[in-house]
């Protein structure tokens, strides 16, 4: 690799910006059959909750044009099994682990943060606030700046000081910048975006919803323009806050687009289902895309699309050998 791909996850330095998206790579073990998990920036694990969870009934997925709907319902083994089995495995492979957490109450999130702080080797915590708040009629935390901030404040308060905390934002809001500001004010070290968009499909033969859960999360290349817009808006409002960009990234060029919009790191989700070795490929392609443009440092182009055109031209020209 010719380009300097180093990037920062809060104060933690990663060798490169390509991550897995939560829920699309398990805890890395299955993926390790296809890629070297220590070579990518980090593995972001499936959102873990306190207790084991069986998730939603099947069918849990539907293919849609350039995307898919899912309603998995956060099936997972719970934090104890995760700490006993999954985290040590990831670390033994030399991978960096960003642990995604999910909860139904502010206290559950806080408890998870403190459990993770007692464990060694957690590179960062990503807080999946796209969960229904069981104490508030099931309203999704991420859709209410006050509830989102309450979760982040509790997690930041209980997480060890040296573990960066990222808040994962939902695009299903009127004003994503307001939620972003609230999370940062509550202590988030960075922001991840975007989670899936709520969608639905109906089977025209059975004349019923395809998913057992009726509605589900839309992901894949179909949502990439939404992701670019969200990253752009948040970067514009909060230029100094690190962003993990995701949503429909399929190629190195797609990753570059999110980087230009302001993401210092890029996560790959649904594309992994299509191509289990996608993360390594996208990393390679991103390197080539940067090299082709004469850019030798990734950090030079993060958020570059926000600069006026002339300045961009000058800056790029400076880098051409």
């Amino acid at each position, binding site marked *: 690799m010719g380009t300097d791909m180093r990037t920062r996850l809060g104060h933690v330095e990663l060798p490169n910006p390509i991550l897995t998206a939560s829920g699309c790579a398990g805890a890395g073990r299955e993926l390790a*059959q296809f890629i*070297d998990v220590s070579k990518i920036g980090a593995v972001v694990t499936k959102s873990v909750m306190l*207790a*084991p969870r*069986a998730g939603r009934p099947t069918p*849990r997925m539907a293919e849609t044009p350039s995307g898919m709907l899912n309603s998995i319902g956060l099936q*997972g083994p719970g934090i104890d099994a995760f700490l006993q089995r999954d985290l040590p495995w990831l670390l033994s492979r030399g991978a960096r682990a960003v642990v995604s957490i999910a909860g139904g109450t502010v206290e559950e999130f806080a408890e998870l943060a403190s459990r993770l702080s007692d464990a060694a080797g957690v590179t960062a915590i990503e807080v999946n606030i796209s969960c229904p708040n069981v104490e508030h009629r099931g309203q999704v935390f991420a859709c209410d700046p006050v509830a989102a901030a309450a979760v982040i404040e509790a997690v930041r308060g209980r997480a060890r000081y040296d573990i960066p905390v990222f808040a994962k934002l939902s695009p299903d809001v009127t004003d994503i910048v307001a939620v972003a500001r609230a999370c940062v004010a509550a202590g988030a070290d960075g922001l991840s975006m975007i989670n899936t968009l709520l969608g639905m499909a109906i089977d025209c033969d059975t004349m019923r919803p395809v998913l057992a859960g009726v509605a589900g999360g839309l992901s894949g290349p179909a949502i990439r323009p939404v992701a670019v817009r969200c990253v752009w808006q948040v970067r514009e409002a909060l230029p100094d806050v690190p962003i993990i960009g995701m949503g429909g990234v399929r190629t190195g060029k797609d990753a570059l687009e999110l980087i230009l919009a302001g993401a210092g790191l890029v996560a790959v989700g649904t594309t992994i*289902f299509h191509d289990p070795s996608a993360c390594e490929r996208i990393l390679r392609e991103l390197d080539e895309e940067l090299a082709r443009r004469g850019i030798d440092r990734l950090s030079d182009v993060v958020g570059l699309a926000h600069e006026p055109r002339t300045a961009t031209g000058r800056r790029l020209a400076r880098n051409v050998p």
Partner: protein
Amino acid sequence: MRAQDADGDAGPVQVRGTVLTVRRVDAYHAMTVVAPGIAARFRPGQFVAVAVGGPDSAMLLRRAFSIHDVRPDHGGTVEFVFSASGPGTRWLAGLRSRDVLDVAGPLGRPFPVPRDPVSCLLVGGGYGSAPLFALAGKLRDRGCKVDFLLGAASGDRVFGALTARRTGRTATITTEDGSLGARGVVTDMLGQVIHEARTDVIYACGPMPMLRQVTLLARRYDLPVQVAVEEAMACGIGVCMTCVLPVVGTDGMTRMVRSCVDGPVFRGEQIRWDDVGTIPFDAVGAPGWEPRSGRLPRGGQAAAGGRAGATGPGHGARESGGSGQQARPGSPGRPGHGH
């Protein structure tokens, strides 16, 4: 591309294989792809997950197909049989030799084979018979007797009837329209075939309602049965959690397990057939579920700090994401049938 999983087993590989042939076989298509790594690792019952639609495809999810056969020519080829029924499979049917196909495999757990030379009945519905012929070969190598019972809606949908007649000790065919063999469905004939063939163990692959029926009948005859299930899959490699079904573990607990990595082969009686498509109330992690040890505070998952249940000794390396202690398929529920 890595080939060792944490088990030390040869894990799956992802290859860009060259298509050798796409042939019509009655109502189906048979595709042969050069995929040396997959051919070398294959064991009967395993499947491949294929990317469809080309590099810029709008169809993101892989399609799963049972491996029908592998051959050593061209360094190793893999053949699967499919029904061109939707956009992805129609695209596959349009491929020609020398086209390139992205294939991941071999995936999933294979059929366990008995240690002793017993009498095996192989039951297939539609294209579900495709994986049974490689299994039959392996069983015969072990000195087992192999009988076939194959069925479909019509004669052109019974895959491999000729091969079954040629290679099986007996081959019974059923069709719903009576165009081939006896009129009816395979389960109509199951009792009679078991009786005549003095069956010791049943293997079945086909639609879920058929597998359910076969399991019920096998229980009536007190025979062990191994079924290869077909659940909608998005990834086929164990990372998405779409393909789950309720399975009872050796500890008596029901878990939602991934049919792509913990299956597709299960002991028939492990599957809670009546609850497929639901989360049984007593499944580990179901709403309101609490571990038996009672160590959790009351009040649902929100407050639960669960410790018991989800984990335990003896996890296979691939069992993550809440699957847990499902018995390995290498141990069918009857003495004398080992790996």
